[in-house]
């Protein structure tokens, strides 16, 4: 059971800490993103470069999506959401490289990302409307619904984590099964689908984050 496709694989140990492939590949994703960002940063100091135009196009496009979804000013939480979108997108596509697994195919990674969103919702809500104002939206429309509101907070966090994990992991599992049953080139159409679903899952995760955050800031009900 330990060597299964969707259970973690330990590479080496540092003292009591087990370093898994998930941790290594998350670091690879971070290194790719930080490397690209620093290339753009260094080139930006000199003159207008292609890299800067590409980066600005990407960020502006993501910001336009966020503005449409949030129906308010998305500026305060742009850094968080864009970071989440880029990290999840690159992490999902990393599974396509031979010998690598997507870090998001591990429930620990997606649970950590969902916990970030879970903590960010009260953070931005309290910052925008104060502690009392934020807590009051739990009592609307009726204090009777308070347990439902609290359950919603937890269940949507669970849904965020399990949705991303299930999608990425099931795609990888299908590719592994196809590869073991059929030949070398048979899983290629499936891998093309992985490119699509990987990007769509990153999009969905960040759009849902925007919906939850803007609901906390504006005090309206969000879909769970």
């Amino acid at each position, binding site marked *: 059971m330990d060597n299964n496709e969707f259970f973690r694989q330990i590479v080496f140990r540092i003292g009591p800490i087990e370093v898994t492939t998930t941790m290594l590949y998350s670091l690879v994703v971070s290194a790719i993103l930080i490397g690209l960002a620093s290339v753009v940063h260094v080139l930006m100091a000199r003159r207008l470069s292609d890299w800067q135009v590409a980066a600005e196009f990407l960020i502006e496009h993501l910001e336009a999506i966020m503005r*449409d979804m949030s129906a308010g000013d998305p500026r305060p939480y742009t850094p968080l959401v864009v970071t989440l979108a880029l990290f999840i997108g690159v992490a999902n596509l990393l599974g396509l490289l031979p010998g690598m697994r997507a870090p998001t195919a591990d429930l620990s990674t997606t649970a950590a990302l969902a916990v970030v969103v879970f903590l960010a919702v009260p953070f931005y809500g309290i910052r925008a409307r104060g502690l009392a104002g934020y807590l009051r939206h739990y009592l609307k429309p009726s204090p009777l619904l308070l347990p439902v509101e609290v359950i919603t907070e937890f269940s949507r966090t669970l*849904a965020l984590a399990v*949705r991303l*994990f*299930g999608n990425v992991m*099931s795609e990888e599992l299908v590719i592994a099964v196809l590869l073991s049953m059929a030949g070398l080139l048979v899983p290629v159409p499936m891998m093309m689908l992985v490119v699509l679903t990987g990007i769509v899952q990153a999009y*969905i995760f960040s759009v*849902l984050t925007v919906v939850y955050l803007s609901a906390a800031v504006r005090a309206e009900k969000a879909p769970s």
Partner: protein
Amino acid sequence: MDKHTIFVLVAMLLAALTTTLGSIGPAIGQSRAIISALDAIARQPDASDRISRALFVGLAMIESLAIYCLVIALIILFANPFSKFFTP
């Protein structure tokens, strides 16, 4: 058949049933959502951006139901908490 064989058989059967039934429901739901979205886009092509964004979010919500069933099927197969009572 000893106890372990019966357990494995029942687990496999239940996992297959979970994924089958769990994907039929979301498939119907998603198809209804897509039908309405395409209708709306055909009537108002200008609003297609907003409609398709709402459609994607809705599809993600519906799809998570199928994913829950997949995860439960995998738990039944590979991480069953009761399998230790039936190992020979």
